[in-house]
């Protein structure tokens, strides 16, 4: 990047700047013509100069031009027009000039704007491109929010400045010089006075502004730090609450804001002081004219006409001068910003762009070995963690790296994964240093997984396939309008120095999927197998079962869910396990469901709390009355209330039982207590139900006989509820009916989760192991039906949130590993990828992964840094590091027999 912004702008927009300068020069012609025209109109047709005679005519558009040196004159006689005609013609010319001037202005402004936006795009892209090329060590010390604030906000003014960068000084400088020249022409000495004052302005004001610039720099840095701090607060919210340090953070933010305020206030003071001085200097010049000029006139050395002409000419000087000084201010301002940004992005050791060059297919070096040749590594503090280690890993080998003391194994894995660069020595793939090989080779041939994982906002699937998106492999076909739009995009990208790779193209390269040979199904297979290997399949299924889908968006899947529901029911009937689930049946009372569910025979979008739209509507209670259940429900609710008051009445309000075993709170209980104590409730008019009765009905609606065991739900009442379903539903007005989605054994319920849709009923309590049995049975049925894959697909669409935060930490670790397994590589480097997992799960996953990679036909090598050293028996070779050097090396069995240290570690 260039040292100054002006140079950067010139470098990238040279032809455009010259062009716009020419256009501006051209636009001057009609501009000055328009100045002269009003005078002509007033003097000519209106005041009658040249039209002294009524029939006099003037030649309109007469011109004659003499080319100097060759003395050739050509001209045009013009049209003879009378006074009125001339007025109309000249006025029309005036209008024309107004239009032409406007058009020029419009064109110049859009051109400048476009120029600025392109440059902004270029510079922003260049900055992000540099971030992508930062060396690993530098990347560690970055604050994302600060970088973001630089890329987003701090470069913003560059765009606005670009258009004016050269045009403005040329234009204004010309104007100012012309004015000055004119003054000098009128009177040399007065001209010199003016020139002297201008010189003072031009020299002093920028000097004073130096402090402004320094303050501007401080303001920028503090504002950027504030952005970084705010980001930290957001990211560390959990930690802040955990340690009760919120007030410390408040103090920190407040003091930063105070600092920003101080700087800004200082800035204002200076800014207006400079402005004051500037204005003062501009006004002093006329003062000198009046005084000196007047003195000279009085003495008779200067005539009055000259003085007036000088003063008149001076009017045109301060305007452009002021603007010129403003331009300089803007220039310095953006220059400071540019230097700031430039410092942050000008990093030594930037990765060579050739290493990142796009390559659709990577040249596949067959059976190359991975060598570490006398590698030393330093950690961030500069301490040596690996000391001249030489090792070799062949294809097909599985190697466990373990640490006795120090962290040599981990650091070595980082070096293999290219996240740490050796301070001496080199790591070679075949014959070449991996730091010199393009990433299209190293990034595909070596898969590195560490404890740290980052996930991008998107679905589970997007993240799983992330490692396959090396280059656009499948072109997106554009047609018609889209095509034009795309061509425009490409053209613009080129003009702004951006790449024009198509983000809409298919980036997932099936040929790099772990299993098979590049067909789309192979990818699916690899994905499922990888999920299985890291034991994430159940989690994904669980995510799917919890989710709700919109059946209109995916009618086939919804149909499959219903199919699965029916197959499960059929299977339960066949095996005599039908009592496992009490299904929702149109003509049966579901004993495990609430009275409300049985009456509505459907799911509601919102839970049935007292402020639910359904329960707060008078229509609901009217409908109950219509079907003849109102009285029974009130009585039943009264009994439930009496029992609940008896059971919970004596408990203190903060007793945990309230939340654990009922949806009621202590206040609810005392409310019901007071309702029960009231005698002879006055009947409301219009046969409406009293609030008390409504409250009792709400209790009834929640009643489940096997849960409450009060024996109040008689079989007559059950029959009546079932019998009233249809009538009750039709009695409800349409807007309430919309709140209920009715159960239909053949239809998907959109407000319920997938699990509820599949089970479509309530688990019965007649079998204590019911949940486990049902789960096993459902798993078998769904596998037979092929539904499991569909379900998995639904789970893969789960949105994992920013940074994968909607997953548990363990799920994230597993996903991190699965993401690497899906892609086919020759070397897999696993750097303690599974911290925090239980020991036996860890062992199972290590076994699974080794088996999974073993079946891959390209015979990959596995390098695994183990935290649990006993697992090293699963590997062909064990390399034990001690204080950054290799202590022992060999097979597990040999090491166990020969090395005392190893034996002690394993035990």
């Amino acid at each position: 990047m260039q040292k100054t912004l002006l140079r950067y702008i010139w470098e990238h927009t040279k032809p455009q700047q010259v062009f716009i300068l020419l256009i501006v020069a051209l636009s001057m012609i009609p501009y000055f013509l328009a100045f002269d025209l009003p005078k002509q109109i007033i003097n000519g047709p209106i005041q009658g100069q040249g039209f002294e005679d009524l029939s006099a005519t003037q030649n309109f558009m007469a011109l004659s031009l003499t080319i100097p040196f060759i003395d050739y004159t050509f001209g045009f006689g013009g049209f003879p027009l009378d006074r009125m005609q001339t007025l109309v013609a000249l006025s029309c010319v005036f209008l024309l000039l107004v239009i032409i001037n406007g058009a020029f202005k419009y064109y110049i402004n859009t051109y400048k704007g476009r120029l600025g936006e392109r440059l902004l795009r270029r510079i922003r892209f260049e900055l992000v491109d540099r971030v992508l090329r930062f060396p690993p060590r530098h990347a560690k010390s970055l604050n994302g929010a600060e970088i973001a604030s630089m890329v987003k906000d701090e470069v913003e003014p560059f765009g606005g400045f670009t258009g004016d960068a050269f045009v403005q000084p040329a234009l204004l400088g010309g104007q100012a010089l012309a004015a000055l020249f004119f003054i000098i022409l009128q009177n040399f000495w007065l001209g010199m006075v003016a020139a002297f004052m201008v010189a003072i302005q031009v020299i002093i004001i920028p000097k004073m502004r130096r402090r402004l610039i320094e303050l501007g720099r401080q303001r920028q840095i503090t504002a950027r730090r504030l952005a970084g701090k705010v980001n930290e607060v957001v990211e560390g919210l959990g930690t802040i609450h955990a340690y009760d340090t919120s007030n410390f953070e408040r103090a920190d933010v407040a003091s930063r804001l105070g600092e920003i305020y101080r700087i800004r206030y200082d800035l204002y003071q200076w800014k207006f002081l400079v402005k004051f001085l500037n204005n003062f200097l501009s006004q002093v010049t006329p003062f000198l004219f009046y005084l000196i000029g007047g003195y000279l006139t009085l003495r008779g050395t200067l005539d009055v006409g000259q003085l007036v002409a000088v003063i008149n000419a001076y009017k045109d000087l301060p305007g452009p001068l002021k603007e010129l000084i403003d331009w300089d201010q803007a220039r310095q301002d953006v220059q400071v910003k540019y230097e700031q940004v430039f410092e942050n992005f000008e990093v030594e050791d930037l990765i060579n762009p050739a290493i990142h060059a796009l390559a659709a297919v990577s040249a596949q070096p067959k059976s190359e070995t991975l060598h570490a040749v006398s590698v030393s590594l330093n950690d961030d503090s500069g301490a040596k963690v690996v000391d001249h280690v030489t090792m070799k890993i062949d294809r097909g080998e599985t190697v466990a790296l373990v640490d006795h003391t120090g962290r040599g194994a981990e650091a070595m894995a980082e070096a293999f994964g290219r996240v740490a660069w050796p301070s001496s020595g080199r790591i070679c793939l075949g014959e070449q240093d991996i730091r010199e090989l393009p990433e299209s080779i190293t990034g595909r041939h070596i898969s590195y997984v560490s404890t740290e994982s980052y996930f991008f906002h998107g679905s589970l699937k997007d993240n799983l396939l992330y490692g396959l998106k090396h280059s656009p492999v499948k072109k997106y076909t554009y047609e018609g309008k889209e095509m034009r739009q795309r061509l425009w995009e490409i053209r613009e990208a080129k003009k702004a120095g951006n790449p024009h790779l198509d983000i809409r193209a298919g980036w997932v390269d099936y040929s790099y999927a772990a299993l098979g040979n590049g067909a789309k199904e192979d990818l699916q297979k690899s994905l499922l197998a990888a999920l299985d290997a890291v034991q994430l399949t159940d989690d994904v299924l669980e995510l799917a079962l919890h989710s709700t889908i919109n059946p209109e968006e995916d009618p086939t899947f919804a149909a499959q869910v219903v199919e699965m529901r029916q197959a499960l029911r059929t299977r339960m009937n066949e095996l005599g396990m039908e009592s496992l689930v009490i299904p929702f049946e149109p003509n049966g009372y579901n004993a495990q469901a609430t009275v409300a569910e049985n009456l509505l025979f459907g799911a509601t979008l919102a839970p049935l709390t007292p402020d639910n739209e359904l329960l707060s509507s008078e229509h609901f209670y009217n409908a109950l009355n219509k079907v003849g259940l109102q009285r029974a429900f009130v009585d039943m609710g009264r009994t439930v209330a009496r029992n609940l008051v008896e059971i919970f009445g004596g408990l203190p309000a903060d007793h945990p039982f309230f939340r654990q075993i009922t949806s009621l709170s202590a206040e609810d209980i005392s409310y019901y207590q007071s309702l029960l104590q009231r005698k002879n409730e006055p009947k409301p008019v219009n046969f409406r139900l009293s609030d008390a009765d409504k409250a009792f009905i709400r209790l009834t609606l929640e009643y489940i006989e096997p849960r409450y065991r009060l024996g109040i739900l008689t079989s007559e009442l059950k029959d009546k509820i079932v019998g009233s379903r249809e009538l009750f539903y039709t009695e409800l007005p349409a807007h309430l009916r919309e709140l209920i989605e009715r159960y239909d054994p053949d239809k998907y319920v959109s407000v319920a989760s997938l699990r509820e849709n599949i089970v479509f009923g309530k688990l019965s309590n007649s079998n204590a192991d019911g949940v486990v049995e049902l789960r096993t049975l459902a798993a078998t049925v769904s596998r037979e039906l092929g539904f499991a894959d569909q379900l998995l697909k639904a789970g893969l669409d789960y949105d994992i949130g920013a940074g994968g935060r909607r997953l548990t930490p363990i799920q994230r670790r597993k996903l991190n590993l699965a993401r690497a397994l899906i892609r086919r590589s020759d070397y897999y480097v696993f750097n303690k990828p599974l911290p925090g997992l239980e020991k036996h799960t860890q062992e199972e996953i290590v076994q699974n992964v080794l088996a999974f990679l073993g079946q891959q036909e390209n015979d990959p090598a596995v390098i695994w840094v183990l935290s649990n050293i006993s697992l090293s028996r699963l590997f062909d070779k064990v390399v034990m590091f001690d204080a950054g050097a290799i202590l022992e090396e060999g097979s597990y069995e040999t090491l166990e027999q020969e090395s005392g240290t190893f034996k002690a570690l394993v035990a």
Partner: protein
Amino acid sequence: MLLCDEVQLLRKLPYFAEVDTCKLKLLAFASERVTFKAGQRLFTQGDSGDSAYFILSGTVDFLVNTADGAVKVSERGANSIVGDISLLCDGPRSSTVQAADVVEALKINKDYLFRIMDDCPGMTMKMTRALAERLRLTSSELDKVRALQKA
């Protein structure tokens, strides 16, 4: 069986003899009713337990793992409580309990029981006494077995 019947049955246990009816009702209400089919396990030896079962109907077998497999050591019928030791100390289950026929039980959660014990000081004493009685029985049986072995 209704809630009030369960309360009547619970009251017959020496543990709960002195507990208020409404507290007992609260315990019964907080407890889940579960049904086991013949052969299903209430819990397995070695598992950690957080609940006891009050048998409402049916019979359960107590099984202990030996070198020759699980051996039935005793059985218990309706109106008895099983798994209560695990409630008081956080150890693993000392034996497997399996339903001999269809068993209806009330699953009493440890946390809920403790809560109720907090509110009824007399209950802790009753419980201690019932356990001491059990300990006395067990140790006398153990003595008998040892005497037999020596003889």
